């Protein structure tokens, strides 16, 4: 499983990459692999306010539907509208072209509730991966 070193992770297999108080959010390689070919992404509304670990996106594959939780609180600044036509980008490139939304982070301290790359790697191992 690919893991990005400087990103932060949740137990539900979302990632967030923070740059200048803006967090780009997506799902991890583990998550995309578990879901299989993604067929649809229901994106959040721009300007929507979300709480940390609140469900804000749902992702569908042929045989599954999965809720995606926002790793940190904030306002949705931008969504990856390319996913509307090419949901498969998440399968192909979950950490870059398959990003889902950008969040204007409300409280940087919330990062303390997330896992580092190393923690996440250990967490995956504990799940038997």
């Amino acid at each position, binding site marked *: 499983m690919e893991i990005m070193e400087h990103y932060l992770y949740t137990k539900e297999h979302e990632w967030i990459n923070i740059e200048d108080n803006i967090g780009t959010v997506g799902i991890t390689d583990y998550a995309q692999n578990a879901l299989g070919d993604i067929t649809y992404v*229901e994106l959040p509304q721009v300007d929507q306010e979300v709480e940390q670990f609140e469900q804000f996106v749902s992702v569908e*594959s*042929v*045989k599954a*539907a999965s*809720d995606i939780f926002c790793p940190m609180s904030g306002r949705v600044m931008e969504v990856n509208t390319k996913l509307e036509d090419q949901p498969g980008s998440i399968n192909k490139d979950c950490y870059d072209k398959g990003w889902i939304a950008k969040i204007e982070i409300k409280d940087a301290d919330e990062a303390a509730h997330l896992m580092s790359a190393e923690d996440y790697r250990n967490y995956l191992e504990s799940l038997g991966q």
Partner: protein
Amino acid sequence: MNPYITNTEFEVQQMLDTIGVKSIDELFADIKPQHHPRSFNLPLGMSEYEVLRRLTGLSLRNNVYLTPFIGGGYYDHYVPSAVGMLIGRGEFYTAYTPYQPECAQGTLQALFEFQSHMCALTGMEVSNASLYDGGTALYEAMMMAIRITGKDKIVMDGGVSPIYRKIIKTYTHHLHYQFEEIPVVHGQSSRPEVNKHLDKNTAAVILQNPNFFGAMDDFTDIIEKAHAVGALAIVSVYPISLGVLKTPADMGADIVTGEGQSLGLPLNFGGPYLGFMCAKKQYVRKMPGRIVGQTKDAQGRRCFVNTLQAREQHIRREKATSNICTNVSLCALQATIFLSLIGKGGLKEMAQLNLDKAEYAKQCLAKVKGVEVKRSSPTFNEFTLHLPKDASEVVERMIEKGFAAGFPLGRYYKGMEKYLLVAVTEKRTKEEIDRYVGALQEVLA
């Protein structure tokens, strides 16, 4: 003995030996004596011809020989013989939900054709593979609008079938939605009243065309108002009328539902019927029920599968768009075959026949002393009469004369005890209509 059990006593013994038990009773060892039935007192079985005799006898105690002028959303239309013969094929009716597409292309393609037929009729972009009936389909549409808009107020036009409204009331009384029922004025939607109740909290306005009183309408203006406040428009339609009436798509409707009984299904004393639901494509993933989609197999051949299943209960469980598990495939197949036989020209012709015969009946009835035909707006194949006495009593007297004369509106509307809803389909002949008029004259005399 149960005649449908194939195995003989000898085979049963072989099977018990293989399992390693002495008797069938041993297989039920988990069910302890305290679980045994306190009673199981049922009659003895009968032969096939005894059952046929008994049930044929019961069927003859139903009167299907009155000349029907009764509708109320369920009509005596002609069903071409080929429809019944084809749906009687065991390959269709003894199959189940097409879980394995490679051995269910017959059902899947037929449902894809059904969806296409419904889109052709309504002018909408997408359709599901059917729902239980027209009433529950309207309820599902309402819930869909609530999910899409995130709002909880419903503006319900009084022209919507009172039966449908009662169903919706049952399903929602424990949930906290705000309902505004807008009574019709002169048998038609009241624009000022409907518009007054459309506001930013409104999830949907629910309309019906033709309405329960038979009146046709063009809801374009109401739908524009609804869209202006961010609400959706749901229109329930009578499919046969769409041979000649403006489509809900042309009015701008977002979700369209209806009762498909008129499309080749017998009246069956209330069911099974055929609910359908169409929508704008942008809402397809919020639709309830099964949907069949076109795709390709590994060799690139066109084929059909159940699709967008992530909406459904077997995947989403408590988060599903609906608890609906199955559709009414066989009824959808009936409608598909019916519409294929009738075809483009036939549907228009059929609708025109309904219109002409109803218009003729209306003109003749208007001449009956004491009868007033409510004609505030044009009607399709059903219309409302105002009688000089209680419509229930008149209907009872008309039964003696061999007619199911219509549906007394007092059954569902307080204050409308003298109103009678009369339906005239393509099957009614001039002679039947003339006799009906004569009989009514006698009853009212």
